[in-house]
């Protein structure tokens, strides 16, 4: 295990007070803004950095060195599916003809062709009848799905007031339902970490608009009772929503549509390998059954004898993005699906689940719920999960998601993805296990910054260089 002995040191540029200086600390200029516009519309001066390209290039290159990405090392951040992002899709996204103005339609047949084909791929993969590509992220997909559900119920003369969400669900589920004006009913999980079918039966009523579910759930467990869940929700007149954050576990093996889900979103930046970009952009297409297709956002793309065209669904909820969503992310995901094909997609979920099971086996911490699929949640037990995470950083491993879901004490939610080798997983396991008998509270040491004071940041918010007085 020579790999265990390898030492991680992140790049660091520092002086006594800071790391890489801010750009305005290197170069700041105030220019007069003489323009041909009327004076009362314009500012007198503008004060911003005014550095030449070599200075800018070195600045951002150094900043990139002070950042950890999937290409830097293992990144088993649970629920985020930090898989490898193919390089060639970036070249496709950079093409001139991939970037047309959003008002074009007849003269953008190539763009519409990609959209139509991606919609069809996603519909088949999810077992859905119709797909919109417009939502620009997973949470936007949730919001869109909830709007569709609301419009559907209203079309039946049925104003419903509640959305039910399991206690292990992503925080976005709760927030999206609240944004759409629904009361959120939190459903406690059963002892086995899954949906408690009896509790659900007691929770549903003629106020239930939607039940939102993640499968496998955030503990990595497949909800085996999903068909019964669907019956309970449908019998109460509600709809069933699939949060696609964990679809990587089931790619090419099981489909939400076959489980009884009416609405789902896909996270193209997770399952379909578009890069996460330091926080985004993502894309959160939404799939629905035929019955709900008339309510999807406008416009939709369809193929006709003459080519492709946009149209407005009969009872559309309208728009959820100013234009067509994050098109470049759609293109990258389309190319990824075409590259993998059916067999590659099925292999992806197989290796993702194999990796999570293998890593769970190698980790010395207790994993209270199982069997896992694409991810597992270990418990740091007596240790603070945050301290465990900070120690893992020193081993060149991005730590798991910490302290969530809350039903596991000191949770370490771990999703290795299919992209890690056995050797890399052994290294992650060693990083995990090395923290077990430690009581260090001064990690990390080997990262660009040492432990960052979160309390100070929140107590005295300094959110721009104008607010700094530390030179």
């Amino acid at each position, binding site marked *: 295990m020579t790999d265990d002995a390898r030492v991680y040191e992140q790049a660091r540029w520092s002086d006594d007070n800071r*790391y890489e200086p801010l750009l305005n600390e290197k170069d700041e200029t105030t220019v007069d803004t003489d323009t041909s*516009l009327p004076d*009362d*519309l314009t500012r007198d001066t*503008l004060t911003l950095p005014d550095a030449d*390209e070599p200075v*800018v290039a070195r600045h*951002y290159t150094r900043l*990139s060195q*002070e950042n*950890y990405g999937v290409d830097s090392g293992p990144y088993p951040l649970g629920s985020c599916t930090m898989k490898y992002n193919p390089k060639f899709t970036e070249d*496709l996204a950079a093409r001139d*003809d*991939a*970037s047309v*103005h959003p*008002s074009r339609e007849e003269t953008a047949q*190539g763009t519409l*062709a990609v959209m139509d084909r991606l919609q069809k*791929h996603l519909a088949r*993969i999810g077992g859905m009848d119709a797909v919109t590509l417009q939502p620009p*992220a997973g949470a936007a997909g949730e*919001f869109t799905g909830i709007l569709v559900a609301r419009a559907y119920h209203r079309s039946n003369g049925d104003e419903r007031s509640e959305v039910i969400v399991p206690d292990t669900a992503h925080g*976005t589920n709760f927030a999206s339902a609240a944004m759409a*004006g629904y009361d959120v009913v939190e459903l406690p999980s059963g002892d086995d970490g899954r949906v408690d079918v009896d509790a659900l039966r007691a929770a549903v009523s003629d106020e239930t608009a939607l039940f939102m579910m993640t499968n496998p759930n955030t503990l990595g467990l*497949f909800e085996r009772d999903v068909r019964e869940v669907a019956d309970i929700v449908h019998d109460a007149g509600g709809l069933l929503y699939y949060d696609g954050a964990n679809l990587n576990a*089931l790619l090419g093996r*099981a489909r939400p549509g076959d489980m009884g889900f009416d609405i789902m979103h896909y996270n193209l930046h997770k399952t379909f390998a578009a*890069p996460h970009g*330091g*926080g*985004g952009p*993502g894309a959160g297409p939404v799939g629905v059954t035929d019955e709900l297709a008339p309510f999807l956002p406008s416009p939709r793309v369809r193929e006709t004898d003459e080519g492709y065209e946009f149209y407005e669904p009969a009872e559309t909820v*309208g*728009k959820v993005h*100013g*234009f067509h969503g994050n*098109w470049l992310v759609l293109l990258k995901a389309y190319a990824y699906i*075409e*590259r993998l094909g*059916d067999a*590659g997609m099925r292999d*992806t979920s197989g*290796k993702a689940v*194999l990796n999570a*099971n293998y890593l769970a086996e*190698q980790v010395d911490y207790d994993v209270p719920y199982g069997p896992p699929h694409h991810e597992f949640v270990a418990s740091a037990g007596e240790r603070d999960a945050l301290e465990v*995470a900070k120690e893992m950083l020193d081993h060149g491993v991005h730590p798991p998601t910490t302290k969530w879901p809350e039903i596991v004490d000191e949770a370490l939610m771990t999703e290795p993805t*299919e*992209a890690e080798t*056995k050797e890399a997983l052994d290294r992650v396991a060693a990083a995990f296990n090395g923290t077990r008998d430690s009581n260090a509270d*001064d990690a990390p040491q080997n990262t660009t*910054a*040492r432990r960052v004071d*979160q309390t*100070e940041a*929140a107590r005295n*918010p*300094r959110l*721009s260089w104008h607010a700094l007085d530390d030179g």
Partner: protein
Amino acid sequence: MTSPYAPHTDDEVRDMLDAVGADTVNELFDVPDELLHDGEFGVEPKDEREVVRHVDELLSRNDDVVEFLGRGSYDHYVPSAVDHLTLRSEFLTSYTQYQPEVAQGSLQALFEYQSMLVELTGLGVANASVYDAATALGEAALLAARVEDGDTVLVPETLLDERASVLRNYVEGAGLSVVEYPTEEGNADVDTVAERAEEAVMVYAETPNLRGVLEENLDALGDVAEDADALFCVGSDPVALSVLRPPADAGADIVIGDASVLGAPTAYGTGVGLFAVDEAHIRQVPGHLVGASTDESGRRAYTLTLQTREQHIRKERATSNICTNQAWLAIRAAVHAALLGASGLVELAERCVEEPRALAERLDGIDGVEAPVHDRPCFREFAARVDDAPRVRDELLERGFAVHALNDDEIQVCVTETNADATDDLVAAFEEVVA
């Protein structure tokens, strides 16, 4: 066939299965048989070259037209260095900075993005992006609804239909309705705004608006909003704001817009939601905020902050449902702004004033064209009056030029540094089409 991005050898797979006590990968799936699918979707695996050729074939169906299109999506030249620097995979393949110690680079880049917007808007706080201008407008109205009494949002009649639709979807759950106010010669009709502001939580104005006109009544609108206890929200973009008065000077509480005018191709409307707000509302901001702090060595370091506003902690009481945002594109906007510098930004903005002015003058010289429709300062684009605007649009398109038809007798033309070279040809085509 295995995934080219799952690097296991067959021996490794066997070792790993042994370690977990399974014979096959399939048996690791705790899925009832009746829910299993064979994964046959009809997609043949391809090698990388084949996919590139396939996508090349599809995208080659996009016609080669010269776009004089704007209305919310604008093309500026993106320097090559933006690609080279932001495609560095440490930026591109990372995610939200939950572990700030290994994410100083993207945190600092986003802090710099926020700082540039603070300078440009004159407001105290800018977030690390939302999706686009339309969703930023929705978030602004929801923020206003949390801090002000009322049940309407006032927007100009010139607001893009698509943005109005997104706004209605965002605010309906909060019990707000969207009410339009008229404009005169492209300017807000302040008296009507004043009459309608009583019930409003927010008054919204755009400069430039979707007809390219710079709003001249911002101060009056700011006063009206303040008198009515409504927030004042201004829509703009970082290029225009490089020369315009900071909206905060006119009393703006919020500035929204699309920062994708910097650093991003038009990309079918891919946006970067600019969201800046007065410091008084710092705890109401949607999305990620990067703040400065110190680390254990006493050096300045950056971290996501005030996270108790956000969905992963506050759930249904969060300020927004947003999680994944447009961070990489925000960094690209910051890199582009850094490459232009203050002087380059001002030059670019001046060009956005001069090019449309010059083009409008030339079009106005053609019999049958009146341009601009509003004799007002314009930015990037302007409306022109013609007979049968849809026909003019279609015939220009046959000649390889794309413009907007706004209605039966107005077209709209957008010109920046990227299509200015083609204005001679556009003018010639206009002469043919209108003659």
